[in-house]
């Protein structure tokens, strides 16, 4: 069900409308915005302070060269739910969040949306109270509207220091066409493009707000334009992710939902499908296909290398581990529905999980094998072999 929701939402492609309409109007508003007087800035100070209370500093994995071990997050519930970027920073059990007043909380990973590359965390608040953005009161901005980007960019704020504020205007609402290194960004929908240097290291997960302190969007990860190579400054509008986040919080999308908890008699493996995932180095390595064995069920279903597995049997899968785990709960004799993200589009596939007849394994009539031990060797060894070949 959630699967369908997400698909339709994404395929609706908010970006169908051309981004840069109302050019004149935009520039007009921009001129007015630039002239926001000193008085207006003073009036904004309580608003800024209020927003800073709702933006958290997140510390986790990283720390290597150009991989900062910190990012930002937005509090979206009284229970301490935080929306942030889905990134390597969360690839540790030791994620902590620090509020503007220095209060530090351990963090639970609630769920994630692999298309939007957003994660939902929950602070272990205990009896503590926090300020938060009510997503129902979020706003939308038009090009030319003055905005504030609030984040812990560069990790400047430490301890009880509040997040940094950058100001600018929404310069455009346009589809995100971006890359990170050689990879395409997953999300291709509309984003707010801003003229503030909003998306510096550590800013991902921060808030874009209007001058009344209303949440407009969440600052995305560091990305470069696919066309110009310039660093992008953008935020994902609340309307694009509120539904998904609410679903995750409600538990509908939560990973490891109880519905599939029973272990099947003959669990499905990657090798059964004929796919090899990218090396699973991190706790949350995205589930990209590294290779597809020719003639395999995966190949027949049209899967290709570089596809990102985002749903397995209706379950969102944010990582290689989650794909393997979810497959493990599916009987190999069942038909398998998956969704992959390919060049920004969700593609649904149906795989008939037959045992491949070509390579090493003993010839078998699908689903009729009665020796589990033999099955196991069949399923693991070709996979390992595949993997080694790919690596060589």
């Amino acid at each position, binding site marked *: 069900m959630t699967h369908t929701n997400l698909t339709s939402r994404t395929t609706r492609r908010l970006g169908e409308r051309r*981004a*840069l309409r109302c*050019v*004149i109007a*935009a*520039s*007009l508003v*921009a*001129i*007015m915005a630039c*002239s926001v*007087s*000193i008085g207006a*800035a*003073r009036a*904004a*100070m309580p*608003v*800024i*302070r209020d927003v*800073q209370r709702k933006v958290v500093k997140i510390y986790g994995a990283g720390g290597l060269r*150009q991989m900062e071990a910190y990012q930002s997050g937005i509090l979206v519930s009284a229970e301490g739910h935080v929306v942030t970027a889905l990134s390597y920073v969360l690839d540790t059990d030791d994620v902590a969040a620090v509020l503007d007043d*220095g209060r530090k909380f351990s963090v639970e990973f609630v769920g994630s949306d692999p298309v939007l590359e957003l994660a939902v965390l929950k602070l272990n608040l205990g009896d503590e109270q926090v300020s938060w953005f009510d997503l129902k009161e979020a706003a939308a901005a038009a090009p030319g509207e003055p905005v504030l980007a609030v984040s812990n*960019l*560069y990790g*400047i*704020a*430490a*301890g*009880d*220091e*509040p997040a*940094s*504020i*950058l*100001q600018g205007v929404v*310069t*455009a609402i*346009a*589809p995100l*066409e*971006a890359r990170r290194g050689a990879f395409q960004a997953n999300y291709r929908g509309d*984003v707010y*493009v801003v*003229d*503030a*240097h*909003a998306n*510096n*290291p550590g800013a991902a997960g921060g808030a874009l707000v209007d001058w009344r302190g209303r949440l407009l969007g969440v600052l995305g990860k560091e990305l470069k*334009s*696919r*066309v*110009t190579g*310039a*660093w*992008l*400054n*953008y935020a994902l509008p609340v309307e694009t992710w509120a539904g998904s986040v609410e679903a995750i919080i409600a538990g509908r999308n939560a990973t490891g939902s109880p519905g599939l908890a029973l272990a099947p008699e003959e669990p499905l493996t990657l090798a059964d499908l004929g796919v090899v995932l990218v090396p699973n180095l991190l706790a949350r390595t995205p589930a990209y296909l590294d290779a597809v064995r020719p003639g395999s069920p995966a190949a027949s279903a049209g899967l290709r290398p570089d596809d990102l597995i985002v749903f397995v049997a209706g379950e969102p899968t944010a990582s290689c581990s989650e794909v393997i785990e979810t497959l493990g709960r599916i009987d190999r004799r069942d038909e398998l529905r998956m969704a992959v993200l390919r060049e920004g589009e969700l593609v649904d596939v149906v795989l008939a999980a037959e045992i491949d007849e070509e390579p090493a394994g003993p010839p078998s009539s699908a689903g009729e094998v009665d020796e589990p031990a033999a099955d196991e060797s069949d399923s693991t060894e070709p996979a390992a072999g595949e993997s080694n070949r790919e690596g060589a």
Partner: protein
Amino acid sequence: MRQPAAAQPLLTSPAVTSPGTECMASCLFIAVATLALGVDTALDVPADVLAAQDVRVAAMARATEATVAIFDAAGQGGGSGVLISPDGFALTNFHVVASGGPAMKCGLSDGVLYDAVLVGIDPVGDVALVQLLGRDDFPVAEIGDSDAVRVGQWVFAAGNPFLLADDFTPSVSYGMVSGVRRYQYPAGTLLEYTDCIQTDAAINPGNSGGPLFDADGRLIGINGRGSFEKRGRVNVGVGYAISINQALRFLGHLKSGRIVDHASLGATVSTEDDGVIVDDILESSDAFRRGLRYGDQVVQFAGRDITTANALQNVLGVFPPHWRVPMRFRRDGQTYDIVVRLESKHDPAELVGLVQREEVDPSRPPGEEPQPDAPGPDAPDPEGPQMPDLRKLLGKEPKLPAAIAERYVQRRGFANYWYNQQAQLRLWERWLEQMQDEGGDSLGYDWQIAGHVATGGEFRLTTGRQQSEIRLPQGVTGAVFRDDLSVQLSPPGSGGLLLAIHLWQRMMDEGLRTFGEVVYLGRLPYGLEGRPADCLSCLYGGVEMRLFYDEQTGALAALETYPSDDVDPCELIFSDYREAGGRILPYHWVVRFGDGEFATLEIDAYKIASPAAASGRDRE
């Protein structure tokens, strides 16, 4: 003067979206074109918006007059600065002047290039003071209060980014205060930015040392560095300015021509679950003598709540050494308030060594230092082949312009000793004038002073060249001034009152020249109120004496004697100056030692037996 080699990349720096780049450009073009045509007619902009714009334009026009474009003597690099007094004193960054020698050229928005000389440097705080020469009516910046700066406030930076301005007209960039009381790590122990202002007004290479103004054009900071990392050395919305309050607190020190150090508490702290806890403390530190101990929880420092170890480091960094700062700590549920005399962060020789290294190879603060003094992308690659340092090869300084040469004296430990000499001379001459000492009779050492103690009872003080004696309600004590003076600390509990009086008499009798090294330290707080005053330091017989001069009258406001580095001084605070023995002398003395007051002495009469006229002009 220089080709704006870096102008091209700057044009491409604002990040815009991919599909919209051209549209955006045209959008901006239309906006700009509309502005050029006159917004009032074309767009019907509300009057108050236009009025706000006029205010801003006027503030910028005023503020940029005081903004300085600095070029080193060799024309190799430069930065920015800001004038703070009509006689040409201007603040800039240490890293702008670090390798340029004592002479430089400074351009103002009037298009004139002035000679300027290095005055003093603060390598830890990355501040330097220079003096522009040739006028006594330089335009100056109006000073703001950086402690009142708030996040969200509009600000603008002025300066010479990329050394663009051929006619020295500063570039202005507008933005917002993104954060206050920020901390940016040092390179080693130098270039530490504490309690600084973070702004998204564009701070680019060449802006270094230039002013950050509030929206009304008041000076609130000195722009010095930014966060850059992987995005190249152009602004990405994160610049840092040293607070003007910090810079001005060091101003007196900088005017001393010294290489100025920053302060250390003499204790280290760590953030624990139950607060900020002292985890190490030097037993020789003033903090220890005031009662701070291992395991104590630091609650407040300089009036600021301390919630993390970083916060303490952040507040500590804005003070010069010897500054006295109130501090509150907690032990066993009880709260203690003390006033701590801060010590130096570095040993003087160590600091000189670090600065000399900077002169040859300016450091790059961790990861993200802009090196904003370098002339942009055409600067030599720091990792690549380096131009040989000509000054090093020649083994001597190049010849200085005459105007500079007469204001520059080289001396170890000083950026420019000439300014220290001048300060010493100025204080001494004002003091003589105030004393009404016109080269007449010496006051000598043979004095008899009678008076009463504020807490009750009488006192009588008899002084001589070899020994002195004081009779107080609690008894009689004496001191002998031969050999090692540092052990003559009577009366007990005073920290050496008789010695302090002896050194005072010696200073009056023989002048400062008989003391060992005399140094003008700058402006330091003295006494209980901690009012800053000009301070001279001198050594005699192993004892350091610090003399504080009243700004208004030039009188000696206080003196402190330090028998050694690790003990409290005897503090003698003078007031109620009146005529005595043909001179003007203080009739109210407060004697302080350690945590408290030793005595307040009200003088009834000075009886001074001048050596020239033995029974001279006594006065009852």
